[in-house]
């Protein structure tokens, strides 16, 4: 795989920012504003919302989770939902179960049962122990290998008692799809960021796409972190200091350890990874947070450039990530 060619050095660029999927969308591309690029991104985001959102009752995912009955639940999936489920299973497979799509019921039990903006949020700057320590008190049996998906159109079967949550991978997949769609619509190099999950497609600008990695994508490019340039592919950052809420007197966050069903506790607070696609980068960042002390070895095994920030703020850069 070779990086796309660089654009002429003086090419002007456009940046559009709006809100969708409960997060911030940034669309950046070469050339003057092009409505076709944004329209293509909006179509992709709307499609993934209808397919895989846990927070809208009419999504394919919600309807599958809501099916009642004592045994396995089966549904025919549309192509996009099927792709999202296949990617989620691949994520679990690639990470030896660290990225688990069957944590839907656990997230609901921990209070993450509605759109993020409706939760009792814990400020990003608050200490990680704010609201009480997170205590792992049980073990959990992984169920992702019991998900069945086959056929065309795809028939998905969920084992009894398992609810899907594709939050770890569907957004990154949507970023990849949106970048490709915008590139095809506008014919220029495109970068799409969905809440900090960044995908690129097509010609890169001179010097590459500049990206600032930090704890919180809402913090802006002046926040403590590092500015890098990528030539192609995607970058994702996952953190346990963002998207926190209070439930039952305890501070929760959205990255759960599949082994316990509880929020992970460290030793990393934020992990950034560059990969061939945004989806693969996101799988790696989530897995690294869950794997904890084993994350560095696992990331090295994957050959992925990564930046890991420990709870005390110390930084580990490896796999070709610039220092």
């Amino acid at each position, binding site marked *: 795989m070779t990086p796309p060619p660089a654009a002429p050095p003086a090419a002007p660029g456009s940046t559009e920012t709006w809100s969708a999927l409960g997060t911030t969308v940034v669309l950046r591309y070469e050339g003057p504003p092009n409505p076709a690029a944004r329209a293509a991104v909006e179509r992709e985001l709307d499609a993934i919302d209808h397919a895989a959102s846990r927070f809208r009752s009419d999504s394919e995912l919600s309807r599958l989770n809501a099916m009642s009955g004592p045994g396995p639940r089966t549904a025919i999936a549309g192509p996009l939902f099927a792709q999202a489920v*296949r*990617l989620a299973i691949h994520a679990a497979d690639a990470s030896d179960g660290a990225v688990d799509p069957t944590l839907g019921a656990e997230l609901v039990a921990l209070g993450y049962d509605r759109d993020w903006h409706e939760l009792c949020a814990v400020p990003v700057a608050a200490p990680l122990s704010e609201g009480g320590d997170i205590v792992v008190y049980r073990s959990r049996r992984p169920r992702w290998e019991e998900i*069945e998906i086959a056929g065309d159109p795809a028939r998905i079967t969920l084992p009894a008692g398992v609810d899907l949550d594709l939050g770890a991978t569907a957004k990154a997949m949507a970023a990849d799809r949106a970048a490709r769609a915008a590139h095809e619509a506008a014919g220029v190099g495109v970068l799409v960021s969905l809440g900090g999950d960044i995908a690129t497609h097509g010609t890169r600008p001179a010097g590459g796409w500049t990206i600032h990695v930090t*704890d919180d994508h809402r913090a802006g490019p002046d926040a403590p972190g590092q500015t890098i340039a990528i030539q192609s592919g995607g970058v994702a950052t996952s953190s346990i200091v963002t998207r926190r809420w209070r439930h039952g007197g305890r501070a929760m966050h959205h990255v759960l350890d599949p082994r316990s069903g509880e929020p992970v506790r460290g030793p990393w607070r934020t992990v950034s990874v560059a990969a061939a696609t945004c989806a693969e980068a996101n799988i790696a960042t989530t897995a690294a947070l869950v794997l904890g002390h084993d994350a560095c070895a696992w990331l090295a095994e994957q050959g992925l450039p990564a930046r890991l920030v420990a709870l005390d703020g110390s930084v580990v850069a490896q796999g070709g990530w610039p220092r």
Partner: protein
Amino acid sequence: MDRVVVMSGPLRASAHARRDAALRRLRRVNRVLIGGAVAATALLTDVTAHAFPGHARRVSARAPATVPAPARAAGAHARQHARHHARHHRRPALRPPASAPTSATATAPPVTTTAPPATSTTTTPPPATTTAAPTPQPQPAPAPAPTVSGGS
């Protein structure tokens, strides 16, 4: 005190006959046991196969482009097999970028990405054009602010 039994000819022949008969019975029993074991194995295999049926392995032609080929095989058994194979051979399952990131510094004024629910569009100005001499040399377009990648 040991007893020594001396058998006469007819008695010795009778003992041999009894021994041979016992060996024949033993051979028959062995045959029955082996046959029964084979039959029981076949029966148990059949029962187990029906109790835990396998799943059709189908490779979808519509598998996502982001998923490498080994993950496209559908079905739990195929996944378990692929997982075991991947573990055994320690092959990376995720693809690195074509080139590693490089260090960069932000030179442009920051552009915040926190705009919900407002919508914003910014355009990086093109290089200045010369309209009259003696004007300064054309300035390159300022680099756009970096896009922020952080937890969400």
